[in-house]
């Protein structure tokens, strides 16, 4: 006999992700799921972002890594809440692992929670963590063909950060091909061409992410300037 089911296979992950999303919305915390290959510069991006935005925003970080707490150690100096999830071989984070660590954060005193996913362009893009949105970080040294090769991530991401632009002269990376391919995967997605180590293009990224928090919180720019949330902490 045949039994009809018609159910999303990742239902368990999806249901837990919705629970996480609702909790974060009620606490006005913007969770950003950062996805890239290993070595594209996720942790360096977070280091600089914490350096510049920590004084004005309350930042938390979830570090997803197969093993070790090396990334978390690099962020320790910013004195922000950090939780490490070691997947012990797993190639991505899922909503259950996020849900388990959320109670380690004081969500009432957080504006933004960055999740540094396990370095991988395929698997993490399949699993909703309950984030407000995903961003993709890709570096010029990986080649200009990444959007065409990994369309799911580049289609799903709300912003793309192209890192290591200072190294372009030493590679065969074509900015024209990259931009044109990206346009055909996700037309209109914001693209930040940056060099985390040299600081190029980073100002635009900081302004954009601050704008996303305002939008998420549903408060006006003046409210943020008056620091109503920040003064209470």
């Amino acid at each position: 006999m045949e039994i009809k089911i018609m159910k999303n296979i990742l239902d368990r992950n999806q249901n837990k992700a919705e629970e996480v999303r609702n909790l974060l919305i009620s606490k006005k915390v913007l969770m950003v799921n950062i996805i890239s290959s290993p070595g594209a510069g996720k942790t360096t991006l977070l280091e600089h972002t914490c350096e510049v935005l920590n004084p004005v925003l309350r930042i938390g970080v979830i570090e997803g890594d197969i093993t070790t707490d090396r990334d978390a150690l690099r962020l320790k100096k910013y004195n922000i809440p950090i939780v490490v999830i070691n997947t012990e071989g797993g190639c991505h984070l899922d909503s259950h692992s996020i849900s388990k660590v959320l109670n380690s954060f004081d969500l009432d005193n957080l504006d933004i929670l960055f999740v540094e996913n396990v370095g991988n362009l395929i698997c993490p893009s399949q699993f909703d963590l309950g984030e407000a949105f995903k961003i993709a970080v890709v570096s010029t040294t990986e080649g200009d063909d990444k959007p065409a090769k990994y369309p799911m991530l580049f289609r799903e991401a709300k912003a793309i950060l192209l890192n290591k632009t200072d190294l372009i002269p030493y590679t065969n990376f074509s900015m024209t091909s990259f931009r044109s391919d990206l346009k055909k995967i996700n037309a209109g997605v914001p693209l930040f061409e940056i060099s985390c180590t040299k600081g190029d293009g980073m100002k635009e990224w900081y302004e954009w992410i601050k704008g996303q928090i305002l939008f998420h919180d549903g408060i006006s720019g003046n409210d943020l300037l008056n620091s109503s949330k920040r003064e209470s902490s």
Partner: protein
Amino acid sequence: MHEIKIAEDLSLIILEEAARAELSVVTKVNITFGQMVAIVPHIFEFAFRETVRGSIAEDAEIEIEVVPLKMKCKDCGTAFLVSESLFACTACGATDLELLEGKELFIKSIEGE
């Protein structure tokens, strides 16, 4: 490697549904994957075999239907199947597109007795 987690969650659903229907053996599992989900069928099958080993679904045959990527142009309204990894409207060339099909990841039915 996301195939492993997807196979694990699939096997949980199969065993749950089979128990509900009081099946003693699951002979076939019918699933649908969208092209964009990038599942490699032989890796998925390997992972699935591991997760159902020793259960009533151990010997179940897997039938995978792959749904091609289908998009609709937001400019001219044309719906079309995407034949390459870069997406552009086949009628007007516009790149502002809505994804209609191709992200599916669901179990349709199980068969057994």
